[in-house]
């Protein structure tokens, strides 16, 4: 068991409203950069976003087409499984409902896939109904590459590894397919309010 280091506090915010902080989390004002791999640098003219898999036909948007879609400002708290939470983060993005509008599917699951090979899986129901966005701005500025730019997923009701950086598309599937971290210890669902960090939680 560890012992207390006399006088050590760390840098977290001490007076955050308790009902906004999931169990085991600490609130920070920083924005730590955490990455499973090198930052990709896809030229914007080569970037596209796709919805494919169990769909009537694949859908694809170039950057211009994507930016022409209606977008909205979204303010949410985010929670990383490494125990830091950041409150009231402000994004600009396109709702997944907008992207799925008109897409016919019987799929129940989705895999987010990114430049660099990262994947993460969710039930389709967890990204519809106003729960998820593809965001391209953070705090009024274009999303920085080290934070997932040009565009990343935002799925704030789950731990933040479920919001893929450098996202390039969604693959809709009839079956669930555990992703990069879900295959190695992290919980398949990842609800911070039930502290579902690891397998078996």
């Amino acid at each position: 068991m560890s012992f207390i280091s006399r006088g050590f506090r760390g840098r977290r915010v001490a007076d955050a409203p308790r009902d906004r902080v999931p169990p085991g989390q600490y609130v920070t004002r920083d924005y730590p950069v955490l990455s499973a791999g090198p930052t990709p640098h896809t030229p914007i003219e080569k970037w596209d976003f796709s919805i494919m898999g169990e769909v009537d036909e694949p859908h694809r948007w170039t950057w211009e087409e994507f930016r022409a879609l209606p977008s909205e400002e979204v303010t949410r708290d985010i929670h990383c499984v490494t125990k830091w939470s950041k409150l009231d983060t402000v994004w600009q993005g396109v709702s997944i409902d907008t992207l799925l509008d008109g897409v016919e599917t019987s799929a129940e699951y989705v895999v987010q896939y990114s430049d660099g090979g990262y994947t993460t899986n969710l039930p389709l129901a967890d990204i519809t109904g106003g729960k998820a966005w593809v965001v391209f701005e953070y705090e009024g500025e274009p999303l920085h590459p080290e934070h997932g730019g040009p565009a990343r997923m935002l799925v704030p009701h789950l731990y933040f590894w479920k919001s893929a950086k450098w996202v390039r598309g969604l693959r809709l599937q009839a079956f669930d397919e555990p992703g990069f971290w879900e295959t190695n210890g992290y919980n398949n669902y990842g609800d911070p309010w039930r502290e579902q960090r690891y397998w078996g939680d």
Partner: protein
Amino acid sequence: MDAGMLDGNAVAGLLQEVFAVEVTTATGTCAACGAAGAMGATHVYRGAGFVMRCPHCDNPLVKIVRGDDRLWIDLSGMRTLEVAV
């Protein structure tokens, strides 16, 4: 190049919690490109967990997730690990 990237050394302590052998001097062979090299020379990234990537092709050789009382290690990106004993 990422400013946050580290060497294999950075996870040596974590790995030594599990293995009784010095992992950074062991030679790993990448399952994707076949390159062999010291684990200490891998490119280490820190995301939700740690990833040790092949310095030649970026393939994840090792993924490590540390829970409170469990640790998960995925070695599927390595074909083989050669260790001095």
